[in-house]
């Protein structure tokens, strides 16, 4: 018998590069107790269509049989559902390694005690401000800052695996470094399950609403944010030292993401998807099998080619660009269309890499 870390095991599995449903993200609901200005879920709620506890358990049984090992429960806010603990415990008893994406505000003593007894792999809690004014200018709910700070301290006291994460927005651009400092003071440094992470990208709403994009930082502001903390900057610089990654496929092919080989998403209504931002190549698990969707439908995206003369096709920066068909469709309604903001970021990254722009 060999004791191995979960990370080592996953790395070994990913390196096999086989089509296998190793990890899945389950969006339990699109509903949320907060009203964050940049949320991509807002407006995509479908009333009375969310799966029931029984339906989720049936799906969990199905993906268990297919050999999935890691599940992320997300939303919306997954704790809005009053059956969250029931679904969590059910999946946990089956041996899934579980990550919870949450804003934290609804973590009650009862839930925290249950998580302490049967801990998740990780709780990823979004903390988008370290002052009440900034945090609540994003969540738009009075009292939410006080509540989240109380919960964070409770989780830390119980030593539950906690990652505090922050999006980079206009509102909190001066607080990223301070949120990281707060995290490290509370949780310590140098541990993978107790740490800070940040996400520089804000996405358009899944209902096509581009309002969230108006809160994005410019490439200059993102640079400033990264410079606000020496370690964040060091990490960013480290990534810039590499060569441009290979696309791995001919430039005529539309999709260059391989995440679908080992990952899947299921939305609150039971739709199995290869990507959280796209409904293409998706199936309804209420009437079709997981196996059918994952193994027969997902690979069809490999056949998709550019149908237009989009300049993204021949762009030399494609391999470092945020552009992908799903994100482009969300933002422009056309999966092949360039997204000016992504172009700006890719150029800025290339400049930091000291790469001569070829176009």
């Amino acid at each position, binding site marked *: 018998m060999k004791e191995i870390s979960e990370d080592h095991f996953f790395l070994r599995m990913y390196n096999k590069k086989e089509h296998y449903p190793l990890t899945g993200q389950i969006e339990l609901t699109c509903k949320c107790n907060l009203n964050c200005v940049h949320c991509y879920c807002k407006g995509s709620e479908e009333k009375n269509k969310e799966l029931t506890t029984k339906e989720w358990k049936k799906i969990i049984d199905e993906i268990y049989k297919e050999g999935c090992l890691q599940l992320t429960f997300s939303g919306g806010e997954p704790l809005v559902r009053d059956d969250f603990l029931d679904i969590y415990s059910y999946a946990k008893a089956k041996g899934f390694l579980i990550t919870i994406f949450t804003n934290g505000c609804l973590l009650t003593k009862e839930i925290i005690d249950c998580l302490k007894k049967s*801990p998740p792999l990780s709780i990823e809690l979004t903390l988008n401000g370290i002052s009440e004014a900034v945090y609540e200018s994003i969540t738009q709910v009075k009292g939410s800052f006080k509540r989240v700070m109380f919960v964070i301290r409770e989780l830390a006291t119980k*030593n539950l695996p906690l990652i505090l994460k922050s999006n980079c927005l206009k509102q909190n651009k001066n607080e990223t470094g301070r949120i990281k400092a707060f995290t490290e003071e509370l949780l310590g440094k140098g541990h993978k399950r107790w740490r800070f992470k940040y996400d520089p990208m804000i996405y358009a709403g899944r209902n096509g609403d581009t309002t969230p994009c108006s809160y994005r930082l410019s490439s200059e502001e993102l640079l400033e944010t990264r410079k606000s903390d020496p370690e964040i900057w060091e990490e960013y610089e480290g990534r810039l030292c590499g060569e441009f990654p290979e696309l791995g496929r001919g430039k005529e092919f539309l999709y260059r993401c391989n995440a679908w080989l080992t990952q899947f998403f299921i939305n609150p209504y039971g739709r199995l998807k290869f990507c959280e931002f796209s409904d293409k190549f998706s199936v309804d698990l209420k009437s079709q099998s997981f196996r059918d969707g994952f193994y027969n439908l997902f690979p069809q995206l490999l056949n998709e080619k550019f149908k237009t003369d989009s300049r993204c096709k021949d762009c030399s920066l494609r391999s470092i660009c945020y552009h992908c068909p799903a994100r482009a469709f969300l933002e422009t309604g056309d999966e092949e269309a360039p997204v000016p903001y992504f172009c700006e970021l890719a150029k800025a990254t290339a400049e930091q890499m000291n790469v001569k722009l070829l176009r």
Partner: protein
Amino acid sequence: MENSELLRKSKDMVTRVIENETILLPIYKTSEEINCIYSLNKVASRIWELIDGKRALSEIKKKVLKEFDTTPEEVDKEMTKLLKDLKEIKAIV
């Protein structure tokens, strides 16, 4: 390790087969320990499968000898090591 000993699996240990590899996952673990899982080779995996609270160790050994191209000494060695490890992580009671 007595040949007549009957061992049972702990209810707090889940067995999963992921891409043909048997792994053991503890359900109730502390947050600090959660970042580890236990991987079994083919012989160990079969021994683990046969532990059911009813079969004696001698019976398990016989079955393994029959199913694998191995020697009694090798099976003894494998079983002794495995059972020690399983007891250590409280996978068997």
